[in-house]
């Protein structure tokens, strides 16, 4: 219930702000030529990025699962890594490389690189879950590679691909950093401009609500496309690894494709950052840098903990199929699609009505928690749902009350999932920019805001160490979450 209230809080404040405006004003804002143009750009960019990212993501995942490479697990981890690089760091590094790197196509390029890992990650997970024996059977039934993919693999993974695509499209909708740096006029940037330029919170809120509506629509769309998928495990022991393609030609093509992606998404940006960093390494203000790192970690950790506390009941309820859980779940997902700037806007209104909260660290962490709670809820839900029902029953017959069972059986078994959910929040919070810009206490600088203030006054050289550090810090949780050797750590399938 608390989580639900917390999740609906920003929406409430947005509505209140928006309703401050007159109806005629609203109509004016809505049907201005500029608004429509912005809307078209936003939708176009979102659609293009999602399509490209899905295509590339599925291809990468398929290749990484089905083709035998040397250092395969290393590659699987590396391909996910770009998710750790904030979009504005991407944009920044490419601006450093190509002067005059700007506009719609530049944004498309950067965002595809940044969001592809979402699709790769979900698809890879689905592939690992799928029942290998079906592939073997279809081979014996005379299907070739493409037919197997279309008729056997695709039905088993399409829900996960859709989920990944949704994440990617929501990312684009709410992105602010890259788009602002590359000068593309989308809704987020328009909101920022209106708010900064005229402090016109009503107009900003109206645009924000449009954004929320689009996000909600996308979520609905994804839900519609999701079919009930019952992977009937035909064999008691599910075989997850089988014969992989070993043809040299296919291997080389795949290796080339994967390495191209890695070069564009990882090697080039990072080497760019590194070279700038080393070229200016003497002039770095280390005390400022370390202070910013600590602040980032503090705020993000606090945010992740709040997120876990809020996500736990929602995830559990939703795993148990409770109605309240489902509603909260959805609210949280919509809030997740809120651009940081909008969350900032909403919480500034909320914070200023409760004096001591305004511009406090707590409010900032709370914003992080709200923004990224969906990540935690998702992993809480799936890991709780995976705890075998019979273990819960046995615990009851062993004299344990529901609360004791929850503490002694459900939580320990779900811990890997809970941990990775919390880490996901941490990762996202550390690179959050727009909401931090609005909500940070005076004098409190995170890596992201510090970097932003350098780049916005074109002191690119000084921004480099911050960008680099952001990438490094954010890369650690990514590695932890995607440890390919660990599986899910649960013996759940055994039962």
């Amino acid at each position, binding site marked *: 219930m608390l989580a639900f209230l917390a999740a609906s809080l920003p929406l409430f404040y947005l509505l209140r702000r928006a309703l401050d405006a007159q109806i005629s004003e609203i109509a004016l804002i809505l049907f201005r030529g500029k608004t429509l143009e912005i809307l078209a750009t936003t939708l176009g960019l979102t659609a293009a990025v999602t399509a490209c990212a899905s295509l590339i993501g599925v291809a990468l995942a398929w290749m990484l699962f089905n083709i035998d490479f040397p250092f395969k697990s290393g590659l699987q981890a590396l391909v996910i890594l770009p998710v750790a690089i904030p979009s504005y760091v991407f944009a920044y590094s490419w601006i450093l490389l190509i002067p005059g790197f700007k506009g719609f196509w530049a944004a498309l390029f950067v965002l595809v690189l940044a969001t592809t890992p979402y699709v790769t990650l979900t698809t890879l997970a689905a592939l690992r879950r799928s029942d290998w024996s079906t592939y073997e059977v279809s081979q014996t039934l005379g299907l070739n590679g493409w037919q197997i993919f279309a008729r056997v693999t695709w039905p088993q993974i399409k829900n996960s691909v859709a989920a990944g695509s949704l994440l990617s499209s929501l990312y684009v909708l709410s992105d602010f950093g890259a788009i602002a740096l590359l000068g593309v006029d989308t809704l987020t940037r328009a909101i920022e401009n209106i708010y900064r330029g005229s402090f016109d919170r009503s107009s900003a809120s109206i645009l924000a609500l449009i954004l929320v509506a689009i996000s909600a629509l996308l979520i609905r769309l994804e839900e519609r496309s999701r079919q009930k998928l019952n992977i009937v495990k035909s064999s008691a022991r599910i075989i997850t690894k089988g014969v992989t393609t070993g043809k040299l030609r296919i291997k080389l093509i795949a290796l080339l494709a994967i390495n191209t992606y890695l070069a564009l998404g990882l090697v080039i940006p990072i080497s760019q950052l590194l070279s700038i960093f080393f070229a200016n390494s003497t002039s770095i203000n280390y005390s400022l840098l370390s202070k910013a790192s600590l602040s980032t970690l503090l705020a993000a950790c606090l945010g992740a903990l709040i997120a876990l506390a809020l996500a736990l009941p929602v995830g559990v309820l939703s795993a148990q199929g409770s109605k309240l859980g489902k509603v909260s779940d959805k609210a949280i997902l919509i809030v997740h699609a809120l651009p940081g700037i909008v969350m900032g806007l909403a919480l500034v209104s909320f914070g200023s009505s409760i004096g001591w909260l305004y511009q406090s660290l707590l409010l900032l962490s709370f914003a992080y928690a709200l923004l990224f709670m969906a990540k935690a809820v998702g992993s809480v839900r799936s890991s709780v749902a995976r705890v*075998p029902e*019979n*273990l819960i*029953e*046995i*615990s*009851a*017959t*062993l*004299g*344990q*009350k*529901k609360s*004791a*069972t929850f503490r*002694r*059986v459900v939580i*320990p*078994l779900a811990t890997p999932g809970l941990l990775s959910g919390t880490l996901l929040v941490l990762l996202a919070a550390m690179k959050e920019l727009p909401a931090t810009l609005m909500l940070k206490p005076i004098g409190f600088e995170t890596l992201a805001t510090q970097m932003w203030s350098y780049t916005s006054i074109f002191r690119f050289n000084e921004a480099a160490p911050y960008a680099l550090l952001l990438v490094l810090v954010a890369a650690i949780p990514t590695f932890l979450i995607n440890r390919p050797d660990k599986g899910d750590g*649960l*013996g*759940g399938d*055994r*039962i």
Partner: protein
Amino acid sequence: MTSLEIRDLTVQLGSREVLKNLDLYISSGLFAAILGPSGCGKTTLLRSIAGLITPKGGAIRFGKQLVSISSLVLPPHKRNVGYVPQEGGLFPHLSVEENVSFALGRRVSRKEKQEIVEQLLDLVGMPNYQKKLPQELSGGQQTRIALARALAMKPAMILLDEPFAALDQTLRAEISQEVVALLKSSKTTSIMVTHDREDALVSADIIALMRDGQVVQSGSPSEVYLRPISAAAAESTGDILTLPARRIGRNKYLSPLNSPVEQIGKQVGFESGQILVRPEEIVLMDEPDENLVSAKICKINYYGHDALVELDFTGLSQTIRARVTDTKGLVVGSRVFVSHKGPFRWMPEKATGE
């Protein structure tokens, strides 16, 4: 240690009535087997006893304590019933020691816990397994640890759901004997669900035969085997032949085993019905005897320790199987003389089926 009394238990799962007005009584300290084909509701019965299912109606009593009446139920954690599900259901995140001591509360000191665990592991024949994880154990070992875990809380009753189904045949006999001996010696009322006749007949003090959500007969193994109340009940415990017959007097019957088939058909005015015969109760003789009917051997199924001989009686549409220990002198196509040494189990016409 307590008795179990179930009256009129009805359980509905979804739209299906899985248990229908089921009655069962098991006295204190006995080892009971619930035997029935899959889908007859035996696991549902076990889960109702454990409190994991809320029945639609009926009452369950542990001794004098009412634990379930109509849909008012005592929750499972207050029933003190040990439940050993199929394949053990050990907690994968806990070691053997932690699994076994799971039910022991905070009031039990660490040292006491260790002692109890040690005793129980000795009891189930797995000493020094404390630190192992469930994944490291074989199926049979998991079952035994699950049993130790259930015993740790000194349950009023132990419920075992197909505990030996996952074991391979050779291991099965050994482990099931050990477990049964252990439970009997602990004097805990135990209820085992199984679809395996031999498991039930060998181990149980009392067998309850289940069919379609009801207990059709219960009693000692020899009782349910030798005196089945219906053909269906007889079939649950072993092979059975159903033969047309007529009753011609007190304890006097005509059947294909003691009278030519056409003669039975001619008899009118006597009560008609069926008799149930176990294949091992049919005796074959190759020396002619005027008092006996004869039949032709149409097939011999040889199993090693015994053999089933299929007999063709003139005028009877079905073949009759006889179990013999020695096939010497029996030749397919030859005629033999047949007699019947067991009790005549008479099923009057109306009472056939269930």
